[in-house]
């Protein structure tokens, strides 16, 4: 569609801008074409205020059946390409049908917009927020312009944040106890912990901690699960003996993590895991995966 619009050279340019655009925080957003652009950042319950400028190309007349702006929250599942599920859709009429001869500015405002979900760009799923301006026309296709923006929601630190402590092992082979100081981490947090070796009968080579992201999309039989390893962090080099304790200190900030998303609009979930992997000299891997909850903390961001 955009392609066609380009080919026929739309008779006007449309600009969408936010009133507080200059002061508002910008964050990078990856577009479909692979390019990263900087877009405005919002959170839920904010007022989204701005203006739309329509500028006909040198004196061309634009006939229309009305101009409107929509705020859309969409979930796009890649295996179901082309189908967007709009979980949020707000419309403001900007103009009644008529003709445009010259540059015209339309202010708009969406007050205290409920945007419960965060923007997300995953492997199989994308959740995005857009402002869509449509100039409806008779006989010819409508003129449409989009403006992406990003939503991030902050949560207060959890009141209960237990440590993860666990004893695992293979009988008569390997017995370890590990401990992560927390089960819930904010995005710039540090994973602190320890691994105690209670019994080591196999020759270990090294040990690492992985951060894994599991993204599940769809539901029922059509569930797609995609797991990515976002970080491999070596914790230990060499073979420990019984009684050793190895410290863990993993800074999360270098990795591009998001909060944990649980069942977003019944469409998808994103979960995070810490995976402790022990590798022996024959490159056999022994691992134990623990889910952690990620959250976005206002102070830390």
């Amino acid at each position, binding site marked *: 569609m955009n392609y066609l619009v380009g080919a026929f050279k739309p008779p006007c340019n449309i600009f969408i801008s936010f009133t507080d655009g200059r002061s508002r925080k910008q964050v990078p957003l990856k577009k479909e074409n692979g390019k990263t652009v900087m877009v405005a950042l919002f959170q839920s319950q904010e007022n989204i205020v701005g203006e739309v400028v329509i500028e006909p190309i040198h004196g061309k007349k634009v006939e229309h059946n009305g101009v409107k702006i929509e705020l859309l929250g969409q979930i796009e599942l890649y295996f179901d390409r082309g189908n967007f599920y709009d979980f949020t859709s707000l419309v403001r009429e900007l103009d009644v049908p008529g003709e445009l001869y010259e540059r015209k500015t339309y202010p708009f405002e969406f007050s205290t917009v409920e945007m419960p979900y965060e923007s997300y760009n995953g492997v199989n799923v994308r959740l995005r927020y857009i402002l869509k301006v449509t100039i409806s026309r008779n006989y010819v296709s409508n003129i449409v312009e989009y403006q992406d923006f990003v939503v991030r929601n902050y949560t207060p630190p959890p009141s209960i944040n237990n440590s993860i402590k666990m004893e695992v092992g293979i009988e008569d082979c390997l017995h370890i106890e590990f401990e992560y100081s927390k089960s819930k981490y904010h995005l710039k947090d540090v994973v602190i912990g320890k691994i105690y070796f209670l019994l080591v009968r196999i020759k270990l080579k090294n040990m690492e901690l992985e951060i894994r992201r599991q993204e599940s999309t769809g539901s029922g039989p059509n569930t797609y699960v995609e797991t990515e390893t976002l970080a491999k962090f070596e914790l230990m080099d060499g073979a420990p003996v019984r009684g050793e304790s*190895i410290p863990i200190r993993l800074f999360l900030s270098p990795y591009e993590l998001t909060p944990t998303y649980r069942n977003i609009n019944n469409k998808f979930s994103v979960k995070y895991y810490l995976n402790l992997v022990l590798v022996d000299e024959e490159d056999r891997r022994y691992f134990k995966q623990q889910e952690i909850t990620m959250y976005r903390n206002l102070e830390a961001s």
Partner: protein
Amino acid sequence: MIADGVEDEEKWLAAGIAGLQQNAFYMHRALDSNNLRDALKYSAQMLSELRTSRLSPHKYYELYMRAFDELRKLEMFFKEETRRGCSIVDLYELVQHAGNILPRLYLLCTVGSVYIKSKEAPAKDVLKDLVEMCRGIQHPVRGLFLRSYLAQVSRDKLPDIGSEYEGDADTVVDAVEFVLQNFTEMNKLWVRMQHQGPAREKEKREKERSELRDLVGKNLHVLSQIEGIDLDMYKETVLPRVLEQVVNCKDEIAQYYLMDCIIQVFPDEYHLQTLDVLLGAFPQLQPTVDIKTVLSRLMERLSNYAASSADVLPEFLQVEAFSKLNNAIGKVIEAQPDMPILGVITLYSSLLTFTLHVHPDRLDYADQVLGACVKKLSGKEKLEDKKATKQIVALLSAPLDKYNDIVTALKLSNYPRVMEYLDSETNKVMATVIIQSIMKNKTRISTADRVEALFELIKGLIKDLDDAFHDEVDEDDFKEEQNSVARLIQLLHSDDPEEMFKIICTVRKHILGGGPKRLPFTVPPLVFSSLKLVRQLQGQEENPFGEEESTTPKKIFQVLNQTVETLSNIPAPELALQLFLQCAEAANDCDLEPVAYEFFTQAYILYEEDISDSRAQVTAIHLIIGTLQRMHVFGVENRDTLTHKATGYSAKLLKKPDQCRAVYACSHLFWVDDQDNVKDGERVLLCLKRALRIANAAQQMSNAARGSAGSVTLFVEILNKYLYFFEKGNPQITVAAIQSLIELITTEMHSDSSTPDPAADAFFASTLRYMEFQKQKGGAIGEKYEPIKV
């Protein structure tokens, strides 16, 4: 295979160095352009080369050193970076983002060093974090090097007393805690090396481990450099903690090396004050640990410390160093039943040296040590182990060296008992050492008891100790040994005749068992030493009380007689004869006629029965004549018997010239200047005439056998005798007799058959010249000579 291994290793090292240099190059570029992100990236890549497992510790060290140099540059950069406003805390976090642990920890240590310097956080916290994080490296070699790097960068940043990093929160306790922890972890890694890898490479592994030991030991060195460790702290914290680690690691190599380290790096006075604790650790070590060396070094150090200043000696007494060491050694020996005897002896030897230095006045200590040694040796065969016997020699030499006085050593009752465990060869060596010590120091051994003890010690030289046949003994060595024994006998002396006599008897008792090879060496000095005593007694008045017990020359002579007799049995008749004659002369001086006669009789019997070699006979007969001539105790009868015999022997010598000379020598037996009763001119003349006859016969025999007359030497000699008696006023020697003898000689000299003999000619000429000279002298002698025509 092995060669390949080495070659491969070289290749890997080269590859490692290349990779390191390449990344270092990019790192430098990043440093130059102040690009922190790149600097971190490339330094981490550079350090990744250290993750290799393919290099031996030696080669790995090479790689490590290169990385170390590069890290110094990086550290400078970090310092500048903080000056430029980059927060050190951020930097400390940033380096921890590295995914690989080894580069991460090297970087962390490097930044940590800058962090401490910045003083933005207490040094102890940073140090604690670093030493804790380093636990992530469990690979022994990599871990050891990493921790050694940590030790290296932190050593000038410890919160020691007086250091700029000392503060309210940072005390020397923290510094000690840090070093101890790093030490403990390093030791664990080091010990673990032993148990990793296949069993067949054990030797290689041990070699590699010993290459790495200084990395571990360096921590102890760092500890010893911490000013703030005073004695209390050392006693309460440092030593117990270090020892705990040493004992618990249960590793032979580590225990040996670390104990030695402790002893070497910490001050002597600390050792002295913590002897209990330190020594308590020894019995807990593995049974295979070479404790003797370590303990010896400790004692050596303490000995030197004691020797360094007299002020410290009270400290030794105060802590009862000796008994503690003694106990510890006992316990160690008990704990290590397999310890070779060499080890035991080495230990005692060191302890002895120690006690000699520290308690020179406590002979009982030294004896105690020797006693313990004996106890340990008992129940064992004689020592075969060369090294062990060498150690015993060292052990036994120590008191001699220290006291320079065998007398002191003789007080040690266990001394000879230790010697018994030596093989005969070593026993001899030891005996020689003892004798040399005596001679060097001119020690006077002046009681019979000590002599007894001394001979007990050196019995290796005095008699054959075992039945084994030692034909391999070098003749020269044997002579050397026996000569030294002879010299020793001469040195034994007491001013008290009673005691001296006892000494003589003791020596005699010992040497008589020496066998035929030794007696010729040992008897003469004993005889002379006895004769010395005789002469000493002779100078004194006869014992006024006339006690039975007292030593008289007579008693001595009895002993002498028996002693010399043993020589004739060996047989060594010539020597025995000489000694008999010596004794006879001494008896003569004591006016003991029967004794002297007895000695002569013995000498004569020897001459008759045992001396058959004609050359020996000649020597003997001259000795007899000479001695007899000097005797003055004999009555006429005895003298006649003896002189008659002597003359008879002379005439029976084999060769005519010998006969001739012996006979004219006999003439002196009848004419003794200072004895008026022995002036028998007639018999003198008889002897001389007889000598002339024999000379004549000799001349004829020579003529008959070789066709030429012999030399006239004999005649000239006889002429000289004539002249002697002539001058002495023997009435039987007339001018006519002399005159005819001169003519005889002249004729002989000019006869055709005579062989020219320049020596004889010169002799004769000078005899004539003498006569001329006497003539010209005038006076009584001149008148006497006047009638002789030359």
